[in-house]
């Protein structure tokens, strides 16, 4: 058992120390992931800090972050390992000695290119493995992850099984564009990261954009909350809130009013129809 973190409260404070304000549920899940040696599946709308959570945990714990960015068409050779064909070919051409010896030689560590999953398994130092946007790979590719995530090992036919020296902390993120397989979900702890509450968003803005006056941060959080309640195609994410806060700092704003909000809406909303809807609401609000 790893026992990297002493308590839930410690996780919360530690993450706050690297400017990631986790709520209780988030801290609880990170704590459990460590104690139960289970990967965490983080799901939620885009821009709520899923990837940032993994990065912050790595930064706080001082671990190396290994990242596997998923995309359609991801396969074993990009996720697990690959044999270095060219080097093997050179070895054969330069070859001396009988074939049996040569064969053992070219299928050894030296000719193996580790990809993120194998690298995380073989690491000697503590690592955080981030498998980003796992919903982008096909269902069949998901199966690749299962062996790694439940048994913490990778099978390389020519060499045997490589088992983890230390169990890494694993975060999988998903935007829920499709349902992940039950088998994968069953192996993970599940965390749904939703948009933060007004108070938490205000604190996030203050922590990340300290130049913004405190009273404006509250305003910003409230306006964004109200925008999210509208029926929009793409509600503003936390990262867009931060962009907006930075915009306000650059513009040197000290008071926020409807017309200023309207003229900077394009930082928060990226669909024409959404901007029009929000502008309409702002007009009625006066």
């Amino acid at each position, binding site marked *: 058992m790893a026992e990297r973190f002493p308590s*839930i409260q410690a996780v919360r404070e530690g993450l706050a120390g690297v400017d990631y304000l986790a709520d*209780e*549920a988030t801290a*609880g*899940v990170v*704590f*459990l992931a460590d*104690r*139960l040696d*289970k990967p*965490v*599946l983080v*799901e*939620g709308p885009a821009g709520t800090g899923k990837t940032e959570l993994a990065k912050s945990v790595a930064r706080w714990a001082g671990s190396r972050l290994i990242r596997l960015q998923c995309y359609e068409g991801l396969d074993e050779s990009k996720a697990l390992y690959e044999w270095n064909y060219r080097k093997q070919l050179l070895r054969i051409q330069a070859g001396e000695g009988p074939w049996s010896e040569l064969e053992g030689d070219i299928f050894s560590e030296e000719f193996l290119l580790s990809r993120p999953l194998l690298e995380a398994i073989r690491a000697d130092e503590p690592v955080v493995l981030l498998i980003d946007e796992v919903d982008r790979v*096909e269902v069949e590719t998901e199966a690749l992850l299962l062996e790694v995530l439940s048994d913490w090992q990778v099978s390389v036919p020519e060499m045997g099984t490589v088992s983890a020296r230390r169990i890494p902390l694993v975060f999988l993120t998903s935007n*829920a*564009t*499709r*349902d992940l397989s*039950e088998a994968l*979900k*069953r192996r*993970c*702890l*599940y*965390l*749904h990261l*939703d948009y933060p509450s007004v108070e938490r968003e205000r604190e996030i803005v203050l922590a990340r954009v300290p130049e913004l006056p405190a009273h404006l941060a509250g305003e910003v959080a*409230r*306006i964004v*909350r*109200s925008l999210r*309640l509208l*029926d929009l*195609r793409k509600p503003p994410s936390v990262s867009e809130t931060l962009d907006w806060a930075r915009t306000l700092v650059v513009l040197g704003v000290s008071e926020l009013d409807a017309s200023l909000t309207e003229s900077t809406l394009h930082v928060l909303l990226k669909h024409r*129809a959404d901007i029009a*809807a929000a502008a309409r*609401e*702002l007009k*009625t*609000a*006066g």
Partner: protein
Amino acid sequence: MLAVLAAFVGELRAAGLPVSLTENIDAMDAVRHVPLDDRSALRAAMAATMVKRPEHRPAFDAVFDSFFSLAPATVDDDGSDLSALLEDALQSGDADAVQRLARLAVARLAGMEEGRGVRGSAYVFKTMRMLDVDGALARLLAGAGWLERDGLTLAAQCLRNEVEAEVRRRLVAERGPEAVARSVRRPLPEDVDFLHASGDDLAALQRTLRPLARRMAARLARRRRHGRHGRLDFRRTLRRSLSAGGVPADPRFRRPRPHKPEIVVLADVSGSVATFARFTLQLVHALAGEFSAVRTFVFIDGIDEVTHLLAGADDLAAALTRVHEEADVVAADGHSDYGRALTAFWARWGREITPRTSVVILGDARNNYHATGAEVLADLRRRARRLWWLNPEPRSYWDTGDSIVAEYARHCHGVFECRNLRQLEAFVAQIG
């Protein structure tokens, strides 16, 4: 503790949550690591191990609150004026103020007595009405701007939740967790029956619809891309063969481009099945990008095309309300008449149905004993690519009374029972 957990998991499963054995074991394991007196940590631990879909979270919370409720708090009633407290709490939105108000209000107004077999919701209703939350909210909303409005509405929602929690707390102390959990059990959003959904259920359904549509669109698009190999791509095969000394060792194929289906929806929008039609139309239109064309017709006993009202509408819910107001769907008496509607459709738009068109008819096939018009369906089937019928009634009700599903089913490629979102999703998944 083990016994409590076992009962808890049993109740979760009864509420429809798919908790597997491994997840159950994980939960037991997780509970060992969190301090048991920390209720929110316990909740987080259990949710993380057993609830793997955000839509299931409310159901989980309801069960959790029944099983691991706090002992009813004793509030020191200092006789303060509730309506003043109410205004303060709504305006500030402060969680502590809201909680204190909820406790006071339940203690003073709900009139809970031991041994009365009254449902919890009745106490909640009584408290909220005696407190006149709606009245106070309306007064405050009248003088509020856009931002304050949202704050007030959320605070009122918060208050309602707190009152519910307080009532539940008192009931649990009296009746035990299992009984209370059973009495507050509600179907999961995907299992809500379209025909008998309450207002809250419908709101929950509405919220799941957009993510569902996004997931389905991704699935349809993905399946189209990952079809079989297409024809041999001669140019690329030849190019690849150069690296193998001219031997075409690695044949390349063209991507198959199956055409997107063209969908025509005929929806019965008479009172009995209107909700069903509404959700199905919303889903189909949210998926419009995955079809080469979507045309929508609504009928009761007359039929009218409403594609122009729905296409490109940003707010589909509002557009659907307009459909009800503007579409010319009543020809005679305003009771469903499938025969008349189908005949009218065939006469006016029949020629526009082509072998690329898939036709979906939504309705309960309760024809009020009018002529069936089934021969129109036979013609329709001959001309269209596919003809499907979705019926929101339970299968056991089919062909009872004035329902004539079997009559129409003979002419369809398939008739599907579509009582909830789960079944609707399964249907849409197979038409892409």
